[in-house]
């Protein structure tokens, strides 16, 4: 319960920052820091004290199996610690970073909301719970990428990120639905017991993978992550390197034990991971913006993690957890470090960042340490974890997939060494044009406090990377509990010096090749173009919109007659289909009728045709009145005098209304407008005309039960006190219909009055405008 409260506290601070403390964001940020630290503390104490993992279920929508289930197992502890400690560092850093930025309020609010969601995500013990926080992180990430919403790049990138992760999330949703449908549960533990197999399970697994891939920017969805770098540095550091992108990895880690053996799973994961690793590495070597280099390196490292968790062997899982931690630490340090340089120099161009050596030497050294950790150089933590990864893959026995994974990782490692070295190179090199930097420097005099605050987290990250490296075996033992939470067999250890083995040899070769490539790699490569993935995304987006327009243009032409035509056609389909099912048998039910009925009907028919043929509007109205009179006669003949009287009166009034409206319209300007083709109209009219009486005939023939009117006859005189049954129905048995009817009549009158008033007002306005213009 305490950790749930911790999650809630995040959101509380978020709301506070967005609404209550809009003018004092720093206070809100401090509150956030307290919450983050508190969360870390809570998680640690919960984990240490408990013998089994503490667990909490909060019912939400039990009928659909929607419940929040949290469990603080080892893996969750590590992840939660990462989230809150890195969050603490980044938030502290951001106070300085956003010193003069009006968006800080928004940042703090969204940041805390994000941190809360992320904490919820990693603590989730249930696919469904995870999904909820998963989607929330997408939304916060969207809003954070677009924090500087005046920049078009930021807006576009935010949209791409949201739509990509959103699409993945929807796939995941279907996957969850399938699993829940099949196995009645979404809990990780219960699903593992259910051991889903079969077609449905592999479809579900694939859908979940799509979710994970989009979130963790795996091929082919890797494009959005570099774009997300449009966000301010703290956002990039936290969301897009250390935490949110790990959500996909968390999902993989949690589900690998469930689906690891469902055939497609391992192939999918390994292939996507390897390709991503290579593409990310390649692009990281070519970018000139240091932040983008880091972004691509993140993509590449995520590929590595994907492979590790996807392979799903105990060792690989252990290695995955270890590398996850290592990556989070050094990557956060790197991003924040680049932020420091950016803050200092006003540029992130790799050919210029060398100048930072002079102004922020401590930070640059710290960045260097982080880079070495990323390259996997002894004695930094990154070395130990990467070694473990290689060992795990060398040990794993997965045939072709295993080999692909192994050599993929080897190739990927070459890249990671190479881009790390390239950045190192950039840092130690003295840039050509230092003049402009000095100038920039001049008007960017930050206070000492700010500089210290900015540098501190970077240094901490570097120190931790180094410290964990030296204490690899201790840290390794800490990691046993997390990885065994995922897979009970995943018990292993880390070592700073593993001894000479295949993995070490491979590493040495990798480092050698990578270092050479990285050092030689050009820093001023300016072949930067829009990445393929983004272009594909934009093309798909634009094509969707264009296609939608074309379809809409056909379906929604804006022409009333066409709408009416379509509707009428549908109206006639109903009776016709009925006739085709039942046949034309009911036609034999037609009687010849009396001569009087015949003559009245003929008069009505002739007049009705006249309405259609005659072009004059008022004559049409007259004919309509004639039709009405004839029909009144018909009613009279059929024993409906009430109806006949009302019909007569109403028809007369109708003519009067037509007169009142039309007498003004005697001068009508008819414009040449596109009309509905005559022949189509006639066809539709004929269909309706044939279809409906046929249905009427069939319906009449089908009557078996007596009419409800029996009751009316029986009760009319004694209980309702009237002999005219029609009237008694109108005012008593079905008086409520009449009630509604007079309301309709009244509103229609109000509508008429309203329109006339509107006309008067508009006319008055027009006249006064004219007068003003005249005077």
């Amino acid at each position, binding site marked *: 319960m305490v950790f749930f409260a911790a999650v809630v506290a995040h959101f509380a601070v978020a709301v506070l920052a967005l609404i209550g403390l809009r003018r004092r964001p720093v206070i809100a940020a401090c509150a956030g820091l307290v919450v983050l630290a508190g969360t870390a503390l809570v998680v640690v104490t919960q984990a240490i004290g408990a013998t089994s993992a503490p667990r909490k279920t909060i019912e939400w929508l039990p009928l659909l199996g929607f419940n929040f289930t949290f469990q603080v197992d080892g893996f969750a502890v590590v992840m939660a610690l990462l989230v809150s400690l890195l969050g603490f560092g980044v938030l502290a850093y951001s106070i300085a970073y956003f010193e003069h930025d009006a968006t800080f309020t928004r940042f703090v609010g969204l940041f805390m909301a994000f941190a809360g969601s992320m904490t919820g995500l990693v603590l989730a013990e249930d696919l469904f719970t995870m999904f909820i926080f998963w989607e929330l992180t997408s939304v916060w990430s969207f809003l954070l990428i677009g924090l500087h919403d005046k920049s078009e790049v930021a807006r576009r990138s935010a949209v791409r990120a949201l739509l990509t992760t959103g699409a993945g999330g929807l796939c995941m949703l279907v996957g969850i639905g399938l699993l829940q449908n099949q196995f009645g549960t979404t809990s990780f533990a219960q699903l593992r017991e259910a051991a889903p197999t079969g077609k449905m399970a592999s479809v579900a697994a694939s859908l979940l993978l799509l979710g994970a891939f989009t979130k963790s920017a795996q091929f082919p969805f890797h494009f959005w992550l570099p774009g997300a770098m449009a966000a301010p540095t703290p956002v990039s550091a936290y969301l897009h390197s250390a935490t949110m992108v790990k959500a996909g990895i968390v999902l993989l880690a949690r589900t690998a034990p469930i689906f690891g053996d469902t055939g497609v799973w391992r192939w999918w994961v390994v292939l996507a991971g390897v390709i991503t690793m290579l593409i990310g590495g390649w692009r990281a070597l070519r970018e000139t913006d240091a932040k983008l280099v880091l972004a691509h390196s993140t993509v590449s490292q995520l590929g590595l993690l994907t492979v590790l968790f996807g392979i799903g062997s105990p060792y690989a899982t252990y290695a995955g957890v270890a590398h996850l931690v290592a990556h989070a630490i050094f990557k956060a340090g790197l991003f924040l470090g680049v932020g420091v340089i950016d803050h200092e120099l006003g540029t992130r161009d790799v050919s210029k960042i060398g100048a930072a050596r002079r102004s922020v030497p401590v930070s640059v050294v710290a960045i260097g340490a982080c880079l070495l950790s990323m390259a996997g150089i002894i004695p930094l933590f990154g070395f130990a974890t990467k070694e473990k990864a290689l060992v795990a893959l060398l040990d794993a026995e997965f045939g072709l997939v295993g080999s692909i994974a192994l050599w993929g990782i080897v190739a990927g490692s070459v890249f990671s060494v190479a881009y790390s070295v390239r950045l190192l190179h950039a840092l130690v090199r003295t840039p050509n044009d230092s003049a402009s930097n000095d100038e920039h420097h001049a008007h960017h005099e930050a206070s000492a406090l700010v500089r210290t605050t900015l540098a501190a987290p970077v240094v901490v990250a570097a120190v931790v990377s180094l410290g964990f490296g030296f204490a690899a075996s201790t840290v390794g033992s800490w990691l046993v509990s997390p990885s065994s939470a995922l897979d009970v067999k995943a018990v292993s250890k880390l070592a700073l010096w593993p001894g000479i083995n295949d993995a070490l040899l491979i590493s040495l070769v990798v480092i050698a090749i990578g270092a050479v490539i990285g050092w030689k790699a050009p820093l001023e490569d300016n072949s930067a173009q829009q990445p393929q993935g983004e272009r594909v995304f934009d093309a798909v987006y634009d094509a969707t919109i264009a296609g939608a327009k074309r379809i809409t243009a056909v379906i929604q032409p804006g022409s009333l007659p066409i709408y009416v035509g379509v509707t009428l056609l549908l109206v006639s389909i109903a009776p016709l289909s009925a006739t085709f099912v039942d046949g034309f048998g009911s036609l034999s039910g037609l009687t010849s009728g009396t001569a*009087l009925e015949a*003559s009245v009907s003929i*008069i009505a028919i*002739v*007049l009705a045709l*006249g309405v259609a043929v005659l072009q*004059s509007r*008022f*004559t049409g109205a*007259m*004919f309509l*009145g*004639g039709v009405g*009179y004839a029909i*009144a*006669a018909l009613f*009279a003949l059929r024993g409906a*005098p009430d109806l*006949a*009287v009302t019909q*007569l*009166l109403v028809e*007369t009034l109708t*003519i*009067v209304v037509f*007169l009142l409206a*039309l*007498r*003004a319209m*005697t*001068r009508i300007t008819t414009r040449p407008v596109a009309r509905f083709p005559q022949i189509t109209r006639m066809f539709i009219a004929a269909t309706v005309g044939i279809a409906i009486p046929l249905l009427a005939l069939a319906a009449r023939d089908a009557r078996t039960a007596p009419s409800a009117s029996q009751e009316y006859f029986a009760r009319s005189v004694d209980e309702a006190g009237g002999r005219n049954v029609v009237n008694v129905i109108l005012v008593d048995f079905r008086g409520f219909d009449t009630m509604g009817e007079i309301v309709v009549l009244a509103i229609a009158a109000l509508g008429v009055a309203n329109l006339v008033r509107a006309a008067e007002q508009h006319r008055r306005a027009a006249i006064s405008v004219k007068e003003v213009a005249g005077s």
Partner: protein
Amino acid sequence: MKLVVTICLGLLVLAGALGVARIVRRSTLGDRAIAFDMLTSVLICSLLVSAGYLRDGLLLDLAIVLSLLGFIASVTIARFIEARDGTE
């Protein structure tokens, strides 16, 4: 009596048919109005005849309404003609 009523109704139907013919034929609004007027008269006549024959008071109600409305219709048309001619 039945024969007489049948003859009467036959005559009235004939009159009605002629009236309808006048209306349907290409004619001016005024002519149509007159024919319309006449048609209501014919209808009233037939109602009265049938009412007398059947001794049914209900039909007389109809006749009352119709005789009230008959000339409202023609007055309406007249007003329309005036409005139209007035603006031309």
